[in-house]
């Protein structure tokens, strides 16, 4: 419904500095392609179409955790890596800040630490501690200047059996998290029954994030 709760929640729990959004809610048209030449308007919440046939839908976009992730393929030092369960993570101790992954990602979800990062409030909020997986530093409360960062799918939470924070905070349950390898899981059933799609599927990146179709587009009718 375009309330940005997940985006703000993400920002808080990961203590993302000002100007950083790992998770954004894009304004689009119902069931349209994410790739459009020109959007209806540069502003959010502006419907598509000509009055009175106006339509609008929201597309929450964060890292798609691609199975065939170009960002991982182009990273010259292997700082971006794919964990066995499919989560794409960045090793903050290895990244050299070349930003090749930023050029390679078709979804525009990576954020570089251009400067030291300004935080309001200026004390640490959210997880507040380093997190390692496979021995590699994949979360720090304050990421160093000069490295790349992005959505981690809340590895800290999913590793202890909790849902990613964006899923947990969504007030209307629009986000579902689960195991795609298990055909009985809620996500798998939903994807099969409703015919979910991947963003820019034609590129073959094979994301692990699926989008369910908009079943009842809200129309401003005559």
């Amino acid at each position, binding site marked *: 419904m375009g309330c940005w709760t997940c985006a703000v929640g993400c920002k808080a729990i990961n203590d993302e500095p000002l100007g950083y959004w790992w998770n*954004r809610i894009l304004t689009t048209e119902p069931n349209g392609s994410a790739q459009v030449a*020109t959007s209806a308007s540069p502003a959010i919440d502006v419907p598509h179409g000509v009055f009175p046939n106006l339509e609008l839908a929201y597309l929450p976009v964060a890292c798609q955790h691609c199975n065939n992730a170009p960002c991982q393929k182009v990273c010259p030092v292997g700082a971006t890596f794919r964990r066995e369960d499919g989560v794409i993570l960045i090793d903050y101790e290895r990244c050299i800040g070349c930003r090749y992954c930023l050029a390679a990602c078709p979804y525009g979800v990576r954020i570089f630490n*251009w*400067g030291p990062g300004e935080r309001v409030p200026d004390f640490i909020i959210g997880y507040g501690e380093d997190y390692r997986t496979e021995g590699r530093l994949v979360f720090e409360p304050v990421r160093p200047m000069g490295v790349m960062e992005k959505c981690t799918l809340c590895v800290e939470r999913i590793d202890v059996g909790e849902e990613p924070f964006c899923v947990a905070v969504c007030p209307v349950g629009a986000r579902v998290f689960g195991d795609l390898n298990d055909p009985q899981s809620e996500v798998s059933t939903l994807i099969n029954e409703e015919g979910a799609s991947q*963003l820019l599927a034609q590129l073959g990146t094979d994301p692990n994030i699926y989008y369910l179709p908009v079943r009842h587009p809200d129309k401003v009718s005559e």
Partner: protein
Amino acid sequence: MVSKNVVRASTPMVRSPWVWGSSALVVVGLVAWFYELEHGLAVTGMRDVVSWGLYIITFAFLIGLAAGGLVVSASAEVFHIEALRPLSRLGVLTAAIFSAAGGLMIIPDLGKPFRILNLFLYPNWTSPLEWDVTIITIYFLFSATELYYMVRHPDHKRLFKVLAYIALPLAVLLHSITAILFGLQFARVWWNIALLPPMFVASAIVSGTALIVVIAWILQKYHGVTIPSSTWRWLAGLMAVSLAIDLFFVGCDYVTILWDNIPTDRAVLALVLPGGRFQFTFWFEWVVGGLIPFVVLASSKLRSKIGYVVASAVLILVGVYAFRIELIVPGFINPLIQLPPGIALGTFTPGASPFQLVGHYSPTIVEYLIVVGLLCLTALAIAWGYHAFRVGESIESEVPHVKSS
């Protein structure tokens, strides 16, 4: 045949004003880099939408010049072009120094430059950047070694023949891989074309030759080195042909996009064509550095005047630089998913949106200073190498062969 006066004539150069001026600019560039290290890449004009800028543009430009150097020197051997022989050592020198300069150009672009060794410690071989780092390293080592042998064992003709046959494909590979670095990225429609490597190779040959022309002219004018007129003719011809091929490739790409109606492709081309935000790159590439030098070089009357050839070479260098800008920046302007509010910038300016739907980039003074500093360092290195590797003598010593043949 070694003419002593060449060496003597050029010694006062160490005290000449341009050396002082360039050295000062190198220092200024270094200071700018320290400033950038302190405050991060936020001091550049790059952000998360247009995430590569002047540094990478200059990097691609320098690597092209490096590739051109070996092409000129190896062609003399491989294609038996006697007229180019006097420039063999000069070509290898520019190849070595410009490949090193290209490698150095990457450093200020890195967020964590002190981790650069990770490139060798943890190589990820699926990354075209890793391929490029490898080929640049090999290329530098190769040309430095060849230079060493040219100075130490100048009579080892067989060796240089073998090296020339390795050098030519190496030079082509160097710039093809640099092209592939961009060309494989399907997230950027403007780069993702199979034509990019040949385009880069052609632009490398034309700009590398132009660079040799400019250096040769400086040597002739200020250092009393005589470059035979047959050499000038060959250089002019090589520039004309490679310029035509280069523009032909770029033109093919334009036509492909113009004929179809794929909105994302058209959107980028519209930025570049007359009327677009980046139209200056079009004018510089096609007119200033394209049509004008081509007409000059194609006309046998104008071509015979060295001044015109040198002026064309300068215009060509400008045009090729414009081509690098045209490729890199517009490639970022329209992200594949371009829906409001756009991509988060990664920095925050009070009162301005933290998102950008259409990319904007203008280099900051820090970027200019660093790039100018590096270019000055490169020029100084060429001047130093010219003396250290006795390039002047190598030119003079080959001249009689040309005259007698």
